[in-house]
């Protein structure tokens, strides 16, 4: 699991590896994020999520070895 920008600032780390039961979707990961990293709780529900470099949603199922990324709204350009 990767974090970027303010999300990384609030978790204090770039990457973390979690083991989750099969057929877990994104939504429980988002909840676990808020508990494991209290500082990110306030924006946890507003973070975008991507799986293997593609946007995903809370309902998307996570598969073994997937790279999940949580990040705030983008501000490139």
């Amino acid at each position, binding site marked *: 699991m990767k974090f*970027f920008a*303010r999300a990384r600032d609030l978790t204090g780390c770039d990457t973390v590896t979690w083991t989750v039961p099969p057929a877990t979707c994104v939504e429980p990961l988002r909840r676990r994020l808020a508990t494991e990293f209290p500082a990110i709780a306030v924006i946890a529900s507003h973070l975008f999520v991507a799986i293997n470099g593609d946007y995903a949603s809370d309902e998307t199922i996570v598969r073994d070895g997937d790279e999940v990324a949580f990040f705030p*709204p*983008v501000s*490139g350009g």
Partner: protein
Amino acid sequence: MIQLTHDPIDTQALTESVRSPQAGAVVLFLGTVREFTAGRQTVALDYEAYSAMAVRKMEELVEQARTQWPIEKAAIVHRLGRMELGDVSVAVAVSTPHRHQAFDAGRFLIDQLKIVVPIWKKENWADGTTEWVHPGSPGIAIPGVLLSGEQP
């Protein structure tokens, strides 16, 4: 040609790279670091990217643009890391047969880049504070339908 770089963007090379005898029009857009944003003074910007995804998304944007306009060539370069006032943070170049296509396609690419490409900007204000820029009110995040406030 899509590229992320930590070096100053060579806008001349980018412009040349899209020129073509089949194209009657070339549009180059440059996003540059502004000194004042909403009344606050910027001294520098820091850009960060989820690089692999960012490159993919920019490639997808060009593919999307090609379905809407008869694009000859297109190129996007986004610079990362620390940038000073006036520096070029992003450059989009596109060539088409007619000028209106080039303006529309160029505008589409930069507008969409600011919505879907995972790059983030951190303001370094003159008062010493820093602040990640996250446009719009962080409503429910539905990719593709994003609330995005006006960006420079």
